[in-house]
């Protein structure tokens, strides 16, 4: 049972949450990122996610380690989907369990922020009026304005 996974199959949040359940935990917080139809008045028809799979898993494991260091009583699982996704389908599920709920909420929100900085996964938007790789345009968030930290 891998805690950090890239898959091309639909994700069930309960499956990911099941990986972190344990007798010591009284709280499980799950985040599901789903495909939204409207963004800034523009309609999305579908998305395509591409990953550098082996590195993406490594980076998710790194994030898991960061979370372990900051919230030692948590347990984390992440599954990210790749391939073609339609409106309301789930792209990512993050599950965090902890004895008391506060750290599960905090760690969960930290993880989604870090995924968006660190994990080599790309989203191509198919709008009604065109396509684009998200994030890969000067007007959005080039790395110069705060990208992932550099590791030597």
């Amino acid at each position, binding site marked *: 049972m891998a805690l950090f996974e890239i898959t091309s199959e639909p994700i069930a949040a309960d499956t990911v949450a099941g990986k972190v359940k344990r007798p010591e935990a009284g709280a499980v917080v799950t985040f599901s*990122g789903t495909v939204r139809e409207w963004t800034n008045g523009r309609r999305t028809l579908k998305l395509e*996610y*591409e*990953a*550098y799979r*082996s*590195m*993406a898993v*490594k980076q998710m494991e790194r994030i898991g380690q960061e979370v372990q260091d900051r919230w030692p009583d948590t347990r984390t699982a992440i599954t*990210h989907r790749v391939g073609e996704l339609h409106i309301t389908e789930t*792209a*990512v599920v993050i599950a965090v369990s902890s004895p008391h709920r506060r750290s599960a909420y905090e760690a969960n929100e930290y993880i*989604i922020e870090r*995924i*968006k*900085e*660190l*994990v*080599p*996964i*790309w*989203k*191509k938007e198919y709008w009604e009026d065109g396509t684009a*790789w*998200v*994030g*890969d345009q*000067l007007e*959005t*968030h*080039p*790395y*110069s304005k705060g*990208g*992932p*930290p*550099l*590791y*030597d």
Partner: protein
Amino acid sequence: MINILFFARLQEEAGRESLHVEKAGYTIRELKEWLDEEYRLTGLNRTMTARNEEFTNDDAVIADGDTIAFIPPVSGG
């Protein structure tokens, strides 16, 4: 020999997923300059680089057998 990987828009621009070239000893910066000339890849300056699946920087020197991946701004989640 080194192995170069392209993703997302860069993959579409390069028209290929990977490239095997004799560039051991180059820095990442020199490799980017060479790719820019040879393949007209735009925006490499806005692209992160990973060496053997860990983020690295432009000064890193590439060793024989390394896998270098160019990582456009990510947008997972």
